[in-house]
């Protein structure tokens, strides 16, 4: 029997055939990397536009203490706000991240331990610090720990910023713990079986075979948490730690607290955080894409 071919033109296909197009939601995927996805997804041209328009507001006003005067005041304070202020935000974030990463790695491996007591303790600790408000943790650390310790007649003061570092490192630790657990779980169980059949013990399998495979996968979410942590460092101003927001308030007080100062000063803090975190977010997304196809 001869086969009859039915001619199908492109036009026909486009007009008549019901095609279910793939569903593609707009915007950043709401997963654990939501923050950097959103931040890194901002278009550079809009960012540049906003940066240009922001000081322009200053010249829209005149008479009395205007925006122009407020911006002049800001210009005088910028070196102080940056090097006595924001630099400390960066330092606090780096210290807190270092402590949080080391502790979080240990806690994450604890969640995967063979010993059920260790596993339960690690799970419980992770959940507590992952789901508590950061500010509450900060206050508890500030108030629960002494402001100085005496060891053999030597009194060592514990400055508030050190406590802030510890306080901020705790939620970071809990989230790194989850990253480690998730990454290890993402390695197929057949890798464990292959290692087992070659007589590797559990520790060897973990350190020689599983962890090297998921190390790359942990970098983007780890950077995501670094960006979130940096954004959270102004919380320290509530503890009186010298950082950008604390210093902005002091600077505004020194300028007689004109309401016009609020927009330029807090706006500057916003810009500085953005300038620091935006490249991190872009790099994180780029790295995630690169590692995804490996």
């Amino acid at each position: 029997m001869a086969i009859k071919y039915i001619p199908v033109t492109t036009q026909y296909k486009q007009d008549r055939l019901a095609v279910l197009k793939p569903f593609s939601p707009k915007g950043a995927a709401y997963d654990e990397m939501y923050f950097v996805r959103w931040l890194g997804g901002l278009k550079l041209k809009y960012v540049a536009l906003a940066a240009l328009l922001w000081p322009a507001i200053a010249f829209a006003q005149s008479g009395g203490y205007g925006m122009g005067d407020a911006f002049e005041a800001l210009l005088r304070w910028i070196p102080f706000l940056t090097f006595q202020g924001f630099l400390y935000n960066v330092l606090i974030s780096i210290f807190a991240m270092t402590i949080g990463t080391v502790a979080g790695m240990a806690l994450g491996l604890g969640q995967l331990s063979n010993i059920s007591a260790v596993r339960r303790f690690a799970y419980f600790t992770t959940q507590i610090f992952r789901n508590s408000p950061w500010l509450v943790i900060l206050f508890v650390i500030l108030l629960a720990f002494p402001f100085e310790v005496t060891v053999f007649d030597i009194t060592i003061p514990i400055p508030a910023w050190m406590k802030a570092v510890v306080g901020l490192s705790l939620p970071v630790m809990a989230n790194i713990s989850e990253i480690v657990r998730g990454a290890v779980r993402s390695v197929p169980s057949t890798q464990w079986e292959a290692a087992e059949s070659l007589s590797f013990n559990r520790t060897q399998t973990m350190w020689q075979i599983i962890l090297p495979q998921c190390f790359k996968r942990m970098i983007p979410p780890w950077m995501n948490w670094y960006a979130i942590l940096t954004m959270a460092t102004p919380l320290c101003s509530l503890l009186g730690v010298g950082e950008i927001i604390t210093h902005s308030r002091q600077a505004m007080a020194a300028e007689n607290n004109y309401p016009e100062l609020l927009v330029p000063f807090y706006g500057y803090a916003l810009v500085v955080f953005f300038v620091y975190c935006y490249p991190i977010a872009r790099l994180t997304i780029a790295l995630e894409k690169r590692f995804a196809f490996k």
Partner: protein
Amino acid sequence: MINWSPEQPIVSIHNVHKSFGPLEVLKGVSMDIMKGEVICIIGPSGSGKSTLIRCINALNDIQGGSITLEGQEVHDEKLDKLELRKKVGMVFQQYNLFPHKTVLENVMMAPIKVLKESKVEAQKRALELIKKVRLDGKENSYPGELSGGQQQRVAIARSLAMRPDVMLFDEVTAALDPETVKEVLITIQDLAAEGMTCILVTHEMAFAREVADHIYFTDRGVIVEHGSPKEFFDNASDPRTKEFLSQVL
């Protein structure tokens, strides 16, 4: 002390029962395998073939019966499973190579880390084994850069590096392209010719007929029939075997 001499079966499986929850996968399986024999286990999907060979190196536990390897009870709770697995090599359907290591590192790793061989010694032997599976020149490639058949041969070399007494092959050609199946089968054939004890779960009937000393046919958790390839393929008596053979041959 374990009394075992090479005249006795190297692997002895006796009345093994294995369940996954309420599902009984092995319902009293027995077989004896002598040193240097090549055994093929064939049968329909879900008949417990893979489960059985995974029980031999204790990747799966058993609920009843016994499995001995060189006279040693495999499922003895006091037994160091890692010591046992040094004697048993296993090759999987999905190769399961370590993707972050090169071919050479994949083969060298276990001897260095587990057998504590020196790096020089392990590397020398790894290169020999890679040559033996006809992959010389690919030492520094990563598994992702190799074809399925090549990866499977690396997996065989990786197992052989542990100097096992018994090799288990779990449907090693099932995930391969027809062209690359042959190169893997030739490698296994070479091993069998050298006197390695091999236990294969396979769907390659022609291969089983050619290399096996003994064929076991399993269905629904029991061994339905077994015999030499000639007896098995030409004079199968059980209706289930006949039906299976009529479908695959």
